């Protein structure tokens, strides 16, 4: 006698009920893999060569893009997972079906397992089958590389995990709700709740916490762990970087895989628990569990209320009154929407206003707590005896390119991030002497300098590693001129120097093999290659390590050196860093002069086509007898006049350092059109504006 109730027979019966979804999945993947690959490869085979890429290379890249995890593939996986998850448990939303199934002598666990496993196989079989067919098609065209093969294996794992986690999440949504439309909304809420909440809290912190340090990757709002979609998005970004390098493809993916596995287990456990406890009478209701309604509504209405209040606060020019209006308006809208969705009845609007009132109150409390810093976020500095080490990054040269890519895995990094993560300052007395002089950044403070900046208030990014294992991040600000006495000891610390400046990194060779150097002096490029480039590099490194900060302060850099190194092969870019040459960098200057770079000579007047000068101020009275206001541009082309102007003109890029604040004339801008670079902006050195320029500007102001 055959076992009438065997698992396979039940799955077969379940499959019969759901086979339209299965065939839809089969159709989708058949089109996506073998058919589209065959059509595209066939078209590419006969195509002409573009640039330096052969048809075969194009075909290989296309096959790689299709077979490796990608956006389109993920979209398909998520879509079919949602459909399969909802369809598997949609019977719970129909009373006749519930009566039919739940009166049968089949345990809940058994039925749950049958539906769940069938749903997984429904995806896995067509997906593997069609993708294998696609791979065979690509092999037939000879367009499969080893990277494609390994990435295909990876895509099987990643897509399966993405499918399973989204499928379980959709099952959970279907079980928690009593109506298909609400289930779909539920999937949306479960998928974006974390990132939405994080984004909102991030925006509140950024707006109201002046010391908030959100620039680092780990503080990034997109670093979410509770939604398969956001986890996959991060994984894809990571993979892209890895693809760019052709190496280390699998490095670091384990945590995302683990994240998806953990999410799958959690969603499955919750779905099973909810399935067991789900009351059959909840068919047709918005939410299956009455007890969930109020907490869920409170949570969503509060988030909506906070968002509404914040939105109104921002668009109204920071009005507290309109913030309250925003909270009330959006909470009421949220209340109406949620109640109507819960009950499918417009009359439900009149119910449960108490929850809406509590949500509005909570929203106001959250906003006010942020606005007036009730938590003391900005006042908080960890006590010295609780601190193990401190990392500090002073952003002295804001215009400097601090981004680089690690060749071994394509990971984007920055000097700031490197310093914050690797620096371990242990001389806490000196560090705290420094920190005590830092202040909470004000609205006028910023990361960037402009022509009007008169006080060198430098942004300071700090990370405390506490003895209890926790970390604290804050942004502070310090006045360079007033507190050089406490800044210099920190700047001179070997731990500071060895992490904050790439020139001193031991692993620098791994990041950048020096290819060439360009010296940009007053807007003119001097390329330096080969051994000479290495000499410049070594001299510069020596200067960085040896020069005290106070010797660099109050000086205008002589120019900028651009160091070019190894890049990321598949991205067709290379790492490059720019660095100022301060007058105190004697070793560098000596080497450059030996190489013929005229660091003391002004720009050759023959290379200048035209100079225009204009004032950016509406009323300048800082030029003694001359009263200058905003006026038309003055145009100079007489070589003798131009030569006088060039003697005291400094490229605007060269004074984007806090060490040179106040050394140029504010309000007067020089645009120089040279023969090979087009327009470039310059400033006059402080107190060195030629007399004829002031006179001409004053005349122009009068004529206005």
């Amino acid at each position, binding site marked *: 006698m055959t076992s*009438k*109730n065997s698992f396979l*027979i*039940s799955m077969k*019966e379940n499959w*019969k*009920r759901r086979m339209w979804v299965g065939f839809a999945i089969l159709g989708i993947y058949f089109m996506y893999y073998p058919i589209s690959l065959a059509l595209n490869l066939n078209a590419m085979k006969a195509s002409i060569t573009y640039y330096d890429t052969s048809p075969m290379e194009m075909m290989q890249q296309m096959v790689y893009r299709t077979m490796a995890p990608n956006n389109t593939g993920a979209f398909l996986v998520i879509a079919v997972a949602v459909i399969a998850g909802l369809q598997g448990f949609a019977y719970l939303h*129909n*009373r*006749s*079906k*519930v*009566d*039919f199934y*739940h*009166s*049968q*002598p*089949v*345990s*809940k666990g058994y039925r749950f397992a049958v539906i769940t496993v069938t749903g997984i196989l429904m995806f896995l079989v067509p997906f593997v089958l069609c993708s294998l067919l696609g791979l065979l098609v690509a092999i037939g065209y000879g367009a499969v590389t080893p990277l494609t093969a390994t990435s295909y294996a990876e895509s099987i794992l990643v897509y399966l995990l993405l499918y399973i986690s989204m499928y379980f999440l959709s099952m959970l949504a279907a079980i928690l709700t009593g109506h298909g439309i609400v289930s779909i909304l539920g999937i949306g809420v479960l998928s974006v709740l974390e990132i939405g909440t994080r984004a909102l809290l991030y925006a509140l912190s950024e707006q109201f916490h002046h010391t908030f340090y959100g620039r680092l990757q780990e503080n990034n709002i997109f670093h979410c762990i509770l939604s398969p979609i956001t986890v996959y998005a991060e994984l894809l970004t990571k993979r892209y970087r890895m693809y760019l390098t052709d190496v280390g493809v699998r490095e670091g993916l384990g945590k995302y895989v683990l994240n998806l596995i953990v999410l799958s287990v959690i969603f499955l456990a919750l779905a099973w628990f909810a399935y*067991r406890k789900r*009351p*059959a*009478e909840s068919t047709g209701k918005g939410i299956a569990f*009455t007890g969930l309604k109020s907490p869920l509504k409170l949570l969503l209405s509060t988030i909506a209320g906070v968002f509404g209040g914040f939105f109104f606060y921002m668009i109204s020019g920071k009005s507290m009154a309109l913030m309250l209006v925003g909270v009330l308006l959006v909470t009421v809208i949220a209340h109406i929407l949620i109640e109507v969705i819960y009950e499918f009845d417009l009359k439900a609007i009149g119910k449960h206003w108490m929850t809406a009132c509590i949500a509005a109150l909570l929203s106001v409390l959250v906003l006010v707590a942020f606005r007036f810093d009730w938590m003391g976020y900005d006042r908080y500095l960890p006590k010295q005896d609780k601190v193990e080490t401190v990392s500090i990054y002073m952003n002295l040269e804001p215009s400097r390119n601090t981004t680089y890519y690690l060749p071994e895995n394509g990971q984007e990094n920055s000097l700031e991030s490197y310093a914050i993560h690797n620096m371990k300052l242990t001389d806490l007395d000196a560090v705290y002497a420094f920190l005590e002089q830092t202040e909470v950044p004000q609205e006028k403070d910023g990361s960037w300098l402009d022509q009007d900046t008169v006080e060198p208030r430098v942004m300071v990014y700090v990370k405390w590693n506490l003895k209890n294992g926790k970390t604290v991040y804050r942004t502070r600000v310090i006045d360079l001129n007033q507190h050089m006495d406490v800044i210099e000891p920190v700047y001179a610390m070997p731990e500071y120097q060895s992490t904050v400046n790439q020139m001193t990194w031991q692993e620098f060779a791994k990041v950048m093999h020096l290819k060439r150097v360009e010296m940009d002096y007053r807007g003119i490029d001097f390329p330096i290659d080969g051994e000479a480039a290495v000499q410049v590099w070594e001299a510069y490194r020596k200067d960085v390590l040896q020069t005290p900060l106070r010797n660099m302060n109050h000086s205008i850099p002589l120019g900028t050196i651009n160091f070019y190194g190894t890049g990321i092969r598949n991205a067709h870019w290379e790492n490059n860093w720019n660095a100022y040459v301060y007058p105190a960098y004697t070793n560098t200057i000596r080497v450059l002069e030996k190489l013929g770079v005229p660091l003391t000579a002004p720009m050759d007047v023959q290379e200048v086509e035209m100079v225009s000068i204009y004032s950016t101020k509406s009323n300048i009275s800082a030029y003694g007898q001359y009263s200058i206001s905003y006026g038309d541009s003055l145009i100079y082309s007489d070589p003798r006049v131009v030569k006088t102007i060039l003697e005291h003109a400094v490229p605007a890029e060269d004074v984007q350092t806090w060490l040179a604040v106040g050394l140029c004339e504010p309000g007067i801008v020089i645009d120089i059109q040279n023969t090979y670079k087009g327009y470039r902006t310059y400033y006059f050195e402080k107190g060195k504006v030629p007399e004829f320029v002031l006179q001409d500007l004053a005349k122009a102001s009068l004529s206005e």
Partner: protein
Amino acid sequence: MIEIQNISKSFDTIKAVNHINLTIADEAVFGLVGTNGAGKSTLLRMLTGVLRPDDGLILIDGMPVYDNKEAKKLMYFIPDEPYFFASSTGKDLGVYLNGVYPLFDLDSFYQHMKTFELDPHRKISTFSKGMKKQLAIIAGICSNTKYLICDETFDGLDPVMRQGMKSIFASHIEERGLTPIIASHNLRELEDICDTVGLLHQGGVLLSKDLVDMKCNIQKIQCVFTTPQAEESFLAQNIPMKVEKRGKLLTMTVRGTKATWEEVLHAADTVFYEILPLSLEEIFISETEVVGYDIKKLLLN
């Protein structure tokens, strides 16, 4: 035996079933009657383990039924709106149920479909409402469960089919001790099939009695007394449940067996008397009026 012990069930603020106690004996047809909204379907859905009672306990042959596979093996539920798989045929249904119910008799299922002229290869969605009901009853019968629970199942069947179905019921009761539990809002539907009837109203059981007992113990008497004094004396000694008088003709509903009343009336000073059988409806009217309800308002028919 099915024991329903003090069960209650509410939906939000509506009390659908309110502290019901009921015992359903084996091998007898139990009828559950009540108006729309009386709680019949809710009671049956709890009885079949679909709904979990808020309070109380339901035991099927001593086993709690909710989420209990063993207890559910003993029963088949035919709801008021039976569900059939989309695009499925009668044969598909039989095959599916054959995999679910351990004692399902597939051959008998096909045989009964043939008897009732239902094509097993035709899509169920093309069946009429009555044909679907027939199919649901055949499926229930062929599941060979001890209890067959029917919610408004005979509504929509024509008299011939109804009779046919009832005869199948009767044979299964006799052959294997089937216990059908049939809910209906129509007393006449149940009159010729039920052994016991329970009356539900507003979530509670007004009464639950054996139909034969009820019929044997309640009589309608029409008589004419020789004199008003004789009539007065009779009524003083024998208080009826209900009395109506039209001219000299007295119509009474009384408790007791026919033989007892034959004796009493024979001894009384009557010109004429007659003891008549009561319809189920009349019995219910009398019984419920005794407990203070006007059944004409409770039942539509």
